[in-house]
Protein backbone atom coordinates (compact mmCIF):
# COMPACT_ATOMS: atom_id res chain seq x y z
CA UNK A 1 0.00 0.00 0.00
CA UNK A 2 3.05 2.21 -0.29
CA UNK A 3 2.30 5.36 -2.19
CA UNK A 4 -1.32 5.49 -1.07
CA UNK A 5 -2.17 8.69 0.75
CA UNK A 6 -2.77 8.42 4.49
CA UNK A 7 -6.22 9.89 4.11
CA UNK A 8 -7.15 7.09 1.74
CA UNK A 9 -5.69 4.64 4.24
CA UNK A 10 -7.84 6.07 7.01
CA UNK A 11 -10.87 5.71 4.74
CA UNK A 12 -9.88 2.16 3.90
CA UNK A 13 -9.35 1.37 7.58
CA UNK A 14 -12.79 2.68 8.22
CA UNK A 15 -14.49 0.86 5.40
CA UNK A 16 -12.71 -2.44 5.97
CA UNK A 17 -13.97 -2.48 9.52
CA UNK A 18 -17.48 -2.71 8.15
CA UNK A 19 -16.71 -6.16 6.77
CA UNK A 20 -15.94 -9.37 8.58
CA UNK A 21 -12.52 -9.62 6.95
CA UNK A 22 -11.80 -6.07 7.91
CA UNK A 23 -11.55 -7.04 11.55
CA UNK A 24 -8.27 -8.71 10.74
CA UNK A 25 -5.09 -6.75 11.13
CA UNK A 26 -5.05 -3.95 8.59
CA UNK A 27 -1.69 -3.17 7.01
CA UNK A 28 -1.14 0.45 6.15
CA UNK A 29 1.90 2.56 5.52
CA UNK A 30 2.51 6.26 5.74
CA UNK A 31 4.93 8.85 7.09
CA UNK A 32 3.43 12.28 6.67
CA UNK A 33 3.59 13.22 10.32
CA UNK A 34 6.08 14.48 12.91
CA UNK A 35 7.33 11.92 15.36
CA UNK A 36 7.41 12.94 19.02
CA UNK A 37 10.17 10.65 20.20
CA UNK A 38 12.34 7.72 19.30
CA UNK A 39 10.92 4.34 20.11
CA UNK A 40 13.10 1.30 20.30
CA UNK A 41 12.55 -2.39 20.63
CA UNK A 42 12.91 -4.08 23.97
CA UNK A 43 16.35 -4.47 25.54
CA UNK A 44 15.27 -7.38 27.71
CA UNK A 45 14.96 -9.43 24.54
CA UNK A 46 18.67 -8.86 23.92
CA UNK A 47 19.64 -9.86 27.44
CA UNK A 48 17.20 -12.76 27.74
CA UNK A 49 16.16 -13.99 24.32
CA UNK A 50 12.48 -14.94 24.60
CA UNK A 51 11.37 -18.51 24.20
CA UNK A 52 7.95 -19.40 22.86
CA UNK A 53 6.02 -21.74 25.13
CA UNK A 54 2.58 -23.24 24.81
CA UNK A 55 -0.09 -24.18 27.27
CA UNK A 56 1.29 -27.73 27.40
CA UNK A 57 4.66 -26.46 28.69
CA UNK A 58 2.98 -24.80 31.66
CA UNK A 59 1.50 -25.93 34.94
CA UNK A 60 -1.91 -24.95 36.22
CA UNK A 61 -2.89 -24.21 39.79
CA UNK A 62 -5.64 -25.95 41.69
CA UNK A 63 -6.31 -22.70 43.54
CA UNK A 64 -6.89 -20.33 40.63
CA UNK A 65 -6.84 -20.12 36.87
CA UNK A 66 -3.34 -18.85 36.13
CA UNK A 67 -0.23 -20.57 34.79
CA UNK A 68 3.43 -21.02 35.65
CA UNK A 69 6.26 -22.76 33.93
CA UNK A 70 8.50 -24.70 36.29
CA UNK A 71 12.19 -24.46 35.47
CA UNK A 72 14.81 -26.88 36.76
CA UNK A 73 17.91 -25.43 38.37
CA UNK A 74 21.24 -27.17 37.91
CA UNK A 75 21.93 -29.60 40.79
CA UNK A 76 25.07 -29.38 42.92
CA UNK A 77 27.94 -31.84 42.54
CA UNK A 78 31.62 -32.02 43.33
CA UNK A 79 34.61 -34.28 43.06
CA UNK A 80 37.27 -35.18 45.61
CA UNK A 81 40.65 -36.80 45.90
CA UNK A 82 40.56 -40.14 47.74
CA UNK A 83 42.95 -42.96 48.57
CA UNK A 84 42.92 -46.36 46.92
CA UNK A 85 40.93 -47.72 49.87
CA UNK A 86 38.77 -44.78 50.67
CA UNK A 87 35.27 -43.94 49.45
CA UNK A 88 33.89 -40.65 48.22
CA UNK A 89 31.16 -38.87 50.15
CA UNK A 90 27.64 -39.45 48.92
CA UNK A 91 25.10 -36.99 47.63
CA UNK A 92 21.43 -37.75 47.47
CA UNK A 93 20.54 -35.89 44.32
CA UNK A 94 18.13 -33.02 44.50
CA UNK A 95 17.71 -30.19 42.05
CA UNK A 96 15.94 -26.96 42.92
CA UNK A 97 12.99 -25.91 40.79
CA UNK A 98 11.57 -22.45 40.32
CA UNK A 99 8.36 -21.09 38.87
CA UNK A 100 8.03 -18.41 36.22
CA UNK A 101 4.55 -16.89 36.29
CA UNK A 102 2.71 -15.45 33.33
CA UNK A 103 0.94 -12.14 33.05
CA UNK A 104 -0.39 -9.86 30.35
CA UNK A 105 1.00 -6.64 28.97
CA UNK A 106 -1.59 -4.64 27.10
CA UNK A 107 -1.82 -1.43 25.18
CA UNK A 108 -4.52 1.03 26.08
CA UNK A 109 -7.94 0.44 24.58
CA UNK A 110 -8.01 2.96 21.74
CA UNK A 111 -11.33 4.40 20.63
CA UNK A 112 -12.32 6.86 17.95
CA UNK A 113 -15.46 7.60 16.01
CA UNK A 114 -15.47 6.95 12.29
CA UNK A 115 -16.32 10.59 11.60
CA UNK A 116 -13.45 12.01 13.67
CA UNK A 117 -11.01 9.68 11.96
CA UNK A 118 -11.71 11.61 8.76
CA UNK A 119 -10.04 14.65 10.32
CA UNK A 120 -6.59 13.06 10.11
CA UNK A 121 -4.24 13.14 7.17
CA UNK A 122 -1.87 10.65 8.79
CA UNK A 123 -2.84 6.98 9.19
CA UNK A 124 -3.34 7.51 12.90
CA UNK A 125 -4.68 4.05 13.55
CA UNK A 126 -1.69 2.43 11.88
CA UNK A 127 0.73 4.67 13.75
CA UNK A 128 -0.85 3.74 17.07
CA UNK A 129 -0.89 0.07 16.14
CA UNK A 130 2.81 0.08 15.31
CA UNK A 131 3.69 2.14 18.37
CA UNK A 132 1.63 -0.17 20.57
CA UNK A 133 4.02 -3.02 19.92
CA UNK A 134 6.92 -0.86 21.09
CA UNK A 135 4.86 0.43 24.01
CA UNK A 136 4.29 -3.16 25.08
CA UNK A 137 7.98 -3.91 24.79
CA UNK A 138 8.68 -0.81 26.86
CA UNK A 139 6.67 -2.35 29.69
CA UNK A 140 8.58 -5.61 29.19
CA UNK A 141 11.73 -3.61 29.84
CA UNK A 142 10.27 -1.93 32.89
CA UNK A 143 9.22 -5.27 34.37
CA UNK A 144 12.68 -6.65 33.65
CA UNK A 145 14.33 -3.67 35.35
CA UNK A 146 12.17 -4.12 38.45
CA UNK A 147 13.15 -7.78 38.60
CA UNK A 148 16.90 -7.28 38.15
CA UNK A 149 16.95 -4.43 40.62
CA UNK A 150 15.17 -6.63 43.17
CA UNK A 151 17.75 -9.35 42.42
CA UNK A 152 20.84 -7.19 43.00
CA UNK A 153 19.37 -5.61 46.11
CA UNK A 154 18.45 -9.03 47.54
CA UNK A 155 22.00 -10.30 47.11
CA UNK A 156 23.44 -7.07 48.45
CA UNK A 157 21.22 -7.36 51.51
CA UNK A 158 22.31 -10.94 52.06
CA UNK A 159 25.98 -9.92 51.86
CA UNK A 160 25.37 -7.27 54.51
CA UNK A 161 24.03 -9.68 57.09
CA UNK A 162 20.42 -9.70 55.95
CA UNK A 163 19.89 -6.00 56.55
CA UNK A 164 19.21 -3.43 53.88
CA UNK A 165 22.35 -1.33 54.19
CA UNK A 166 22.71 2.19 52.91
CA UNK A 167 25.17 2.50 50.04
CA UNK A 168 26.26 6.08 49.49
CA UNK A 169 29.51 8.04 49.48
CA UNK A 170 29.21 8.84 53.17
CA UNK A 171 28.71 5.20 54.13
CA UNK A 172 31.62 4.12 51.94
CA UNK A 173 33.87 6.67 53.62
CA UNK A 174 32.78 5.64 57.11
CA UNK A 175 34.44 3.32 59.56
CA UNK A 176 32.37 0.25 58.63
CA UNK A 177 31.59 0.62 54.95
CA UNK A 178 28.88 -1.58 53.45
CA UNK A 179 29.84 -4.67 51.50
CA UNK A 180 29.58 -4.01 47.76
CA UNK A 181 28.71 -7.51 46.68
CA UNK A 182 26.21 -7.04 43.88
CA UNK A 183 25.96 -3.25 43.76
CA UNK A 184 29.00 -1.04 43.48
CA UNK A 185 29.52 2.70 43.35
CA UNK A 186 31.61 4.18 40.55
CA UNK A 187 35.06 5.48 41.38
CA UNK A 188 34.04 9.14 41.14
CA UNK A 189 30.78 8.59 43.02
CA UNK A 190 32.44 6.89 45.96
CA UNK A 191 34.74 9.84 46.64
CA UNK A 192 32.08 12.51 46.14
CA UNK A 193 31.81 15.17 48.83
CA UNK A 194 28.01 14.88 49.03
CA UNK A 195 25.43 12.15 48.62
CA UNK A 196 23.60 13.44 45.56
CA UNK A 197 21.89 12.35 42.36
CA UNK A 198 24.53 13.75 40.02
CA UNK A 199 25.59 11.08 37.56
CA UNK A 200 29.37 10.95 37.33
CA UNK A 201 31.07 9.95 34.07
CA UNK A 202 31.55 6.27 33.39
CA UNK A 203 35.25 5.46 33.59
CA UNK A 204 37.13 2.47 32.29
CA UNK A 205 38.00 1.38 35.83
CA UNK A 206 34.28 1.31 36.71
CA UNK A 207 33.55 -1.11 33.92
CA UNK A 208 36.43 -3.36 34.88
CA UNK A 209 35.39 -3.38 38.55
CA UNK A 210 31.85 -4.25 37.45
CA UNK A 211 33.10 -7.19 35.41
CA UNK A 212 35.08 -8.39 38.40
CA UNK A 213 31.92 -8.64 40.49
CA UNK A 214 30.75 -11.45 38.23
CA UNK A 215 34.07 -12.83 37.07
CA UNK A 216 35.15 -13.34 40.66
CA UNK A 217 32.22 -15.62 41.43
CA UNK A 218 32.70 -18.42 38.93
CA UNK A 219 30.49 -16.63 36.48
CA UNK A 220 31.48 -14.53 33.53
CA UNK A 221 30.28 -11.06 32.67
CA UNK A 222 28.97 -11.26 29.11
CA UNK A 223 26.72 -8.31 28.49
CA UNK A 224 26.46 -4.75 29.72
CA UNK A 225 23.27 -2.72 29.80
CA UNK A 226 23.54 1.05 29.97
CA UNK A 227 21.73 4.16 28.85
CA UNK A 228 22.77 6.11 25.79
CA UNK A 229 23.72 8.90 28.19
CA UNK A 230 26.23 6.76 30.05
CA UNK A 231 27.50 5.32 26.79
CA UNK A 232 28.30 8.85 25.67
CA UNK A 233 30.85 9.01 28.48
CA UNK A 234 32.82 6.31 26.71
CA UNK A 235 33.34 8.77 23.90
CA UNK A 236 35.23 10.90 26.41
CA UNK A 237 37.69 8.21 27.36
CA UNK A 238 41.19 9.47 26.76
CA UNK A 239 44.08 8.16 24.73
CA UNK A 240 45.31 6.52 27.91
CA UNK A 241 42.10 4.47 28.00
CA UNK A 242 41.82 3.78 24.32
CA UNK A 243 45.26 3.88 22.76
CA UNK A 244 45.90 6.13 19.80
CA UNK A 245 44.21 4.00 17.13
CA UNK A 246 40.85 3.66 18.89
CA UNK A 247 41.09 7.26 20.04
CA UNK A 248 41.52 8.41 16.44
CA UNK A 249 38.65 6.25 15.25
CA UNK A 250 36.37 7.35 18.07
CA UNK A 251 37.04 11.00 17.42
CA UNK A 252 35.93 10.62 13.81
CA UNK A 253 33.33 7.86 13.85
CA UNK A 254 32.41 7.41 17.48
CA UNK A 255 32.96 4.11 19.25
CA UNK A 256 31.89 1.64 16.58
CA UNK A 257 32.69 -1.76 18.03
CA UNK A 258 30.12 -4.26 19.25
CA UNK A 259 32.11 -5.05 22.35
CA UNK A 260 33.54 -2.93 25.12
CA UNK A 261 36.60 -4.35 26.87
CA UNK A 262 35.74 -7.68 25.32
CA UNK A 263 32.09 -7.84 26.40
CA UNK A 264 28.95 -7.13 24.41
CA UNK A 265 26.93 -4.11 25.41
CA UNK A 266 23.36 -2.89 24.95
CA UNK A 267 22.47 0.78 24.85
CA UNK A 268 19.00 2.11 25.45
CA UNK A 269 17.37 5.47 24.95
CA UNK A 270 14.65 4.61 27.48
CA UNK A 271 16.11 6.75 30.22
CA UNK A 272 12.80 6.84 32.08
CA UNK A 273 13.07 3.08 32.58
CA UNK A 274 16.80 2.51 32.91
CA UNK A 275 17.78 5.73 34.61
CA UNK A 276 21.16 7.26 33.74
CA UNK A 277 23.87 6.31 36.20
CA UNK A 278 22.77 2.69 36.45
CA UNK A 279 24.81 0.12 34.55
CA UNK A 280 24.04 -3.59 34.81
CA UNK A 281 26.10 -6.55 33.74
CA UNK A 282 24.77 -10.03 33.03
CA UNK A 283 26.02 -13.50 32.40
CA UNK A 284 24.84 -15.57 29.46
CA UNK A 285 21.09 -16.25 29.61
CA UNK A 286 21.55 -19.92 30.53
CA UNK A 287 23.10 -18.85 33.85
CA UNK A 288 20.65 -16.06 34.47
CA UNK A 289 16.94 -16.50 33.86
CA UNK A 290 14.07 -17.10 31.50
CA UNK A 291 11.80 -15.03 29.35
CA UNK A 292 8.81 -16.90 27.99
CA UNK A 293 6.16 -15.81 25.55
CA UNK A 294 2.89 -17.65 25.98
CA UNK A 295 0.98 -15.59 23.44
CA UNK A 296 2.63 -13.28 20.94
CA UNK A 297 1.19 -9.85 20.45
CA UNK A 298 -2.46 -10.06 19.49
CA UNK A 299 -4.37 -7.24 17.92
CA UNK A 300 -8.09 -6.82 18.41
CA UNK A 301 -10.14 -4.37 16.43
CA UNK A 302 -13.86 -3.84 16.26
CA UNK A 303 -16.37 -1.32 15.12
CA UNK A 304 -19.71 -0.96 16.83
CA UNK A 305 -21.91 1.55 15.02
CA UNK A 306 -19.52 4.43 14.39
CA UNK A 307 -17.12 3.70 17.27
CA UNK A 308 -13.86 2.03 16.35
CA UNK A 309 -12.08 0.19 19.16
CA UNK A 310 -8.72 -1.53 19.09
CA UNK A 311 -6.25 -3.01 21.56
CA UNK A 312 -3.06 -5.09 21.51
CA UNK A 313 -1.65 -7.40 24.15
CA UNK A 314 0.75 -10.24 24.81
CA UNK A 315 1.11 -12.85 27.55
CA UNK A 316 4.61 -13.32 28.92
CA UNK A 317 6.56 -14.61 31.87
CA UNK A 318 10.05 -13.61 32.95
CA UNK A 319 12.14 -14.64 35.89
CA UNK A 320 15.58 -13.90 37.29
CA UNK A 321 16.25 -17.41 38.53
CA UNK A 322 19.92 -16.97 39.42
CA UNK A 323 20.09 -13.63 41.17
CA UNK A 324 23.89 -13.86 41.31
CA UNK A 325 24.06 -13.56 37.53
CA UNK A 326 23.42 -9.81 37.48
CA UNK A 327 25.43 -7.01 39.09
CA UNK A 328 25.04 -3.26 39.13
CA UNK A 329 27.21 -0.18 38.94
CA UNK A 330 25.92 3.11 40.32
CA UNK A 331 27.54 6.29 39.02
CA UNK A 332 25.86 8.59 41.57
CA UNK A 333 26.84 9.05 45.19
CA UNK A 334 23.39 8.91 46.80
CA UNK A 335 21.75 5.85 48.30
CA UNK A 336 19.52 3.79 45.98
CA UNK A 337 18.50 1.07 48.43
CA UNK A 338 15.07 0.65 49.98
CA UNK A 339 16.38 2.74 52.90
CA UNK A 340 16.32 5.76 50.57
CA UNK A 341 18.62 7.49 53.04
CA UNK A 342 19.10 10.54 50.81
CA UNK A 343 15.44 10.66 49.68
CA UNK A 344 16.60 10.58 46.07
CA UNK A 345 15.52 7.05 45.19
CA UNK A 346 12.89 8.19 42.70
CA UNK A 347 15.73 9.49 40.52
CA UNK A 348 17.24 6.04 40.15
CA UNK A 349 14.33 3.64 39.72
CA UNK A 350 12.07 3.18 36.69
CA UNK A 351 9.34 5.75 36.32
CA UNK A 352 5.76 4.70 37.03
CA UNK A 353 3.94 3.20 34.05
CA UNK A 354 1.67 6.22 33.86
CA UNK A 355 4.67 8.51 33.57
CA UNK A 356 6.51 6.69 30.80
CA UNK A 357 7.07 8.38 27.47
CA UNK A 358 6.54 11.98 28.47
CA UNK A 359 5.56 14.07 25.49
CA UNK A 360 8.47 15.99 23.99
CA UNK A 361 6.64 18.35 21.68
CA UNK A 362 4.66 21.31 23.04
CA UNK A 363 2.20 21.69 20.21
CA UNK A 364 -0.79 21.29 22.50
CA UNK A 365 0.46 24.30 24.48
CA UNK A 366 0.79 26.25 21.25
CA UNK A 367 4.58 26.19 21.35
CA UNK A 368 5.78 25.86 17.74
CA UNK A 369 7.64 28.37 15.73
CA UNK A 370 6.84 30.42 13.82
CA UNK A 371 3.47 30.88 15.50
CA UNK A 372 0.76 30.66 12.86
CA UNK A 373 -2.81 31.61 13.74
CA UNK A 374 -5.60 30.55 11.44
CA UNK A 375 -8.94 32.27 11.35
Amino acid at each position, binding site marked *: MAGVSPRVLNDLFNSKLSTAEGKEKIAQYGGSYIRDRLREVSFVRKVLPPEQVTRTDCQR*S*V*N*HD*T*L*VKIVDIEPQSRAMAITFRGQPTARFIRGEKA*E*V*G*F*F*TISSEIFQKTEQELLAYEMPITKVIEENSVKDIQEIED*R*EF*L*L*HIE*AAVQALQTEANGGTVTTLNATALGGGTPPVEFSVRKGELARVAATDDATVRPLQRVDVVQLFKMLDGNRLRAERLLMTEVDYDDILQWTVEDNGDRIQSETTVDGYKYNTLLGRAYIRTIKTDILRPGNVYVFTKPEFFGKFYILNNTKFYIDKIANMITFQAWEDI*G*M*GVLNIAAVRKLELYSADATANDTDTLLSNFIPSA*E*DDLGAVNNRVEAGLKFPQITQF
Partner: protein
Amino acid sequence: MSTVQRVNFEPVRDVLPVQRADFPLADGSLADPLNAVALVDGEWMSVDSAYKIVRVTDVTTPGNEAAARSYPLWAERGRYDVQAMGDRKMPVLWLGAWEFNTRIFDAAAAIGTGAAITAVDQPLKIATITIGSRNYTGIVGSDTTDAGAIIVGYVTRLPAANGGKLRLRGGTGY
Protein backbone atom coordinates in the same frame (compact mmCIF):
# COMPACT_ATOMS: atom_id res chain seq x y z
CA MET B 1 -20.60 -17.84 59.76
CA SER B 2 -19.14 -17.89 56.28
CA THR B 3 -16.22 -20.09 55.30
CA VAL B 4 -13.37 -18.88 53.12
CA GLN B 5 -12.63 -21.14 50.16
CA ARG B 6 -10.50 -20.97 47.03
CA VAL B 7 -12.98 -18.76 45.22
CA ASN B 8 -14.79 -16.28 47.40
CA PHE B 9 -16.11 -13.64 45.06
CA GLU B 10 -17.92 -14.69 41.90
CA PRO B 11 -20.00 -12.77 39.39
CA VAL B 12 -23.61 -13.74 38.83
CA ARG B 13 -24.12 -11.20 36.02
CA ASP B 14 -22.21 -10.30 32.88
CA VAL B 15 -18.90 -8.66 33.85
CA LEU B 16 -18.17 -7.15 30.45
CA PRO B 17 -19.85 -3.82 31.26
CA VAL B 18 -17.85 -3.54 34.50
CA GLN B 19 -14.58 -1.64 34.37
CA ARG B 20 -12.00 -3.87 36.05
CA ALA B 21 -8.94 -1.82 36.89
CA ASP B 22 -5.52 -3.11 37.96
CA PHE B 23 -3.77 -1.16 40.70
CA PRO B 24 -0.38 -1.87 42.27
CA LEU B 25 -0.51 -3.04 45.86
CA ALA B 26 0.97 -0.54 48.30
CA ASP B 27 2.27 -3.61 50.15
CA GLY B 28 3.29 -6.15 47.52
CA SER B 29 3.85 -8.85 50.14
CA LEU B 30 0.06 -9.21 50.47
CA ALA B 31 0.08 -11.04 47.12
CA ASP B 32 2.12 -13.82 48.69
CA PRO B 33 -0.35 -16.63 49.46
CA LEU B 34 1.75 -17.64 52.48
CA ASN B 35 1.46 -14.20 54.08
CA ALA B 36 -0.63 -14.54 57.25
CA VAL B 37 -2.88 -11.74 56.04
CA ALA B 38 -2.67 -12.46 52.30
CA LEU B 39 -5.37 -10.79 50.27
CA VAL B 40 -8.28 -12.92 49.13
CA ASP B 41 -10.89 -12.20 46.50
CA GLY B 42 -13.81 -10.28 47.90
CA GLU B 43 -11.81 -8.12 50.28
CA TRP B 44 -12.28 -4.37 49.94
CA MET B 45 -9.57 -1.96 48.91
CA SER B 46 -9.24 1.80 48.78
CA VAL B 47 -6.93 3.80 46.56
CA ASP B 48 -4.22 5.83 48.27
CA SER B 49 -2.61 9.08 47.18
CA ALA B 50 0.04 7.17 45.20
CA TYR B 51 -2.74 5.47 43.16
CA LYS B 52 -2.04 2.17 44.86
CA ILE B 53 -4.50 -0.02 46.68
CA VAL B 54 -4.59 -0.74 50.39
CA ARG B 55 -7.11 -2.53 52.59
CA VAL B 56 -9.73 0.02 53.52
CA THR B 57 -9.74 -1.14 57.14
CA ASP B 58 -7.07 -2.09 59.64
CA VAL B 59 -7.03 -5.85 59.23
CA THR B 60 -5.45 -6.33 62.64
CA THR B 61 -8.42 -4.76 64.41
CA PRO B 62 -11.72 -6.68 64.20
CA GLY B 63 -14.65 -4.32 64.04
CA ASN B 64 -12.65 -1.51 62.45
CA GLU B 65 -15.10 0.19 60.08
CA ALA B 66 -14.18 1.60 56.67
CA ALA B 67 -13.86 5.36 56.66
CA ALA B 68 -13.12 5.69 52.95
CA ARG B 69 -14.67 4.59 49.68
CA SER B 70 -13.61 1.09 48.72
CA TYR B 71 -13.74 -1.39 45.86
CA PRO B 72 -13.93 -5.18 45.84
CA LEU B 73 -10.86 -7.18 44.93
CA TRP B 74 -11.42 -9.69 42.14
CA ALA B 75 -8.32 -11.86 42.29
CA GLU B 76 -7.98 -15.10 44.20
CA ARG B 77 -5.27 -15.56 46.80
CA GLY B 78 -1.85 -16.26 45.33
CA ARG B 79 -2.63 -15.80 41.64
CA TYR B 80 0.51 -16.26 39.56
CA ASP B 81 -0.22 -13.33 37.25
CA VAL B 82 -0.24 -10.99 40.25
CA GLN B 83 2.96 -12.40 41.72
CA ALA B 84 4.73 -12.38 38.35
CA MET B 85 4.54 -8.61 37.95
CA GLY B 86 7.16 -6.25 39.31
CA ASP B 87 4.51 -3.90 40.65
CA ARG B 88 2.20 -6.68 41.89
CA LYS B 89 -1.07 -5.29 40.60
CA MET B 90 -4.48 -6.64 41.51
CA PRO B 91 -7.82 -5.96 39.83
CA VAL B 92 -10.74 -4.26 41.54
CA LEU B 93 -14.26 -3.62 40.26
CA TRP B 94 -13.72 0.04 39.58
CA LEU B 95 -16.65 1.41 37.60
CA GLY B 96 -20.06 0.10 36.62
CA ALA B 97 -22.78 -1.88 38.32
CA TRP B 98 -22.32 -5.53 39.22
CA GLU B 99 -23.86 -8.41 41.16
CA PHE B 100 -21.57 -10.92 42.88
CA ASN B 101 -21.70 -13.75 45.40
CA THR B 102 -19.24 -13.30 48.24
CA ARG B 103 -17.98 -15.38 51.12
CA ILE B 104 -16.13 -12.50 52.75
CA PHE B 105 -18.87 -11.24 55.04
CA ASP B 106 -20.06 -11.52 58.61
CA ALA B 107 -23.85 -11.64 58.68
CA ALA B 108 -24.06 -11.53 62.46
CA ALA B 109 -21.82 -8.57 63.10
CA ALA B 110 -23.32 -5.23 64.05
CA ILE B 111 -20.48 -2.76 63.73
CA GLY B 112 -20.97 0.77 65.03
CA THR B 113 -24.61 1.66 64.46
CA GLY B 114 -24.98 -1.04 61.80
CA ALA B 115 -27.07 -4.17 62.03
CA ALA B 116 -26.81 -7.88 61.30
CA ILE B 117 -27.57 -8.89 57.71
CA THR B 118 -31.16 -10.08 57.73
CA ALA B 119 -33.03 -8.68 54.75
CA VAL B 120 -32.91 -8.34 51.00
CA ASP B 121 -32.12 -4.77 49.90
CA GLN B 122 -30.39 -4.07 53.20
CA PRO B 123 -27.45 -1.67 52.75
CA LEU B 124 -23.97 -3.05 53.32
CA LYS B 125 -20.73 -1.54 54.55
CA ILE B 126 -17.17 -2.65 55.14
CA ALA B 127 -15.35 -3.56 58.35
CA THR B 128 -12.65 -5.90 59.58
CA ILE B 129 -14.27 -9.26 60.24
CA THR B 130 -13.00 -12.57 61.55
CA ILE B 131 -13.70 -15.75 59.64
CA GLY B 132 -12.16 -18.88 61.07
CA SER B 133 -8.78 -18.02 62.52
CA ARG B 134 -7.93 -14.83 60.68
CA ASN B 135 -9.23 -11.38 59.82
CA TYR B 136 -10.43 -9.98 56.51
CA THR B 137 -11.71 -6.67 55.24
CA GLY B 138 -15.24 -7.74 54.38
CA ILE B 139 -18.90 -6.98 54.37
CA VAL B 140 -21.12 -6.32 57.34
CA GLY B 141 -24.67 -5.05 57.55
CA SER B 142 -25.75 -1.46 57.75
CA ASP B 143 -29.20 0.05 57.93
CA THR B 144 -31.04 3.27 57.33
CA THR B 145 -30.14 4.66 60.73
CA ASP B 146 -26.41 3.94 60.31
CA ALA B 147 -25.28 7.54 60.02
CA GLY B 148 -21.94 8.07 58.37
CA ALA B 149 -21.64 4.52 57.03
CA ILE B 150 -20.15 4.24 53.55
CA ILE B 151 -22.56 1.97 51.73
CA VAL B 152 -20.94 -0.30 49.15
CA GLY B 153 -23.94 -2.29 47.98
CA TYR B 154 -27.24 -3.91 48.80
CA VAL B 155 -28.23 -7.47 49.63
CA THR B 156 -29.92 -9.28 46.76
CA ARG B 157 -29.92 -12.76 48.24
CA LEU B 158 -29.39 -13.81 51.82
CA PRO B 159 -26.77 -16.47 52.66
CA ALA B 160 -29.38 -18.84 54.06
CA ALA B 161 -30.99 -19.00 50.62
CA ASN B 162 -27.74 -18.91 48.63
CA GLY B 163 -25.61 -21.83 49.77
CA GLY B 164 -23.94 -19.79 52.51
CA LYS B 165 -22.83 -17.01 50.17
CA LEU B 166 -24.07 -13.47 50.35
CA ARG B 167 -25.27 -12.06 47.04
CA LEU B 168 -25.05 -8.33 46.64
CA ARG B 169 -25.20 -5.68 43.99
CA GLY B 170 -22.94 -2.68 44.03
CA GLY B 171 -20.83 -0.41 41.95
CA THR B 172 -22.06 2.64 40.13
CA GLY B 173 -24.20 4.88 42.21
CA TYR B 174 -22.38 5.01 45.50
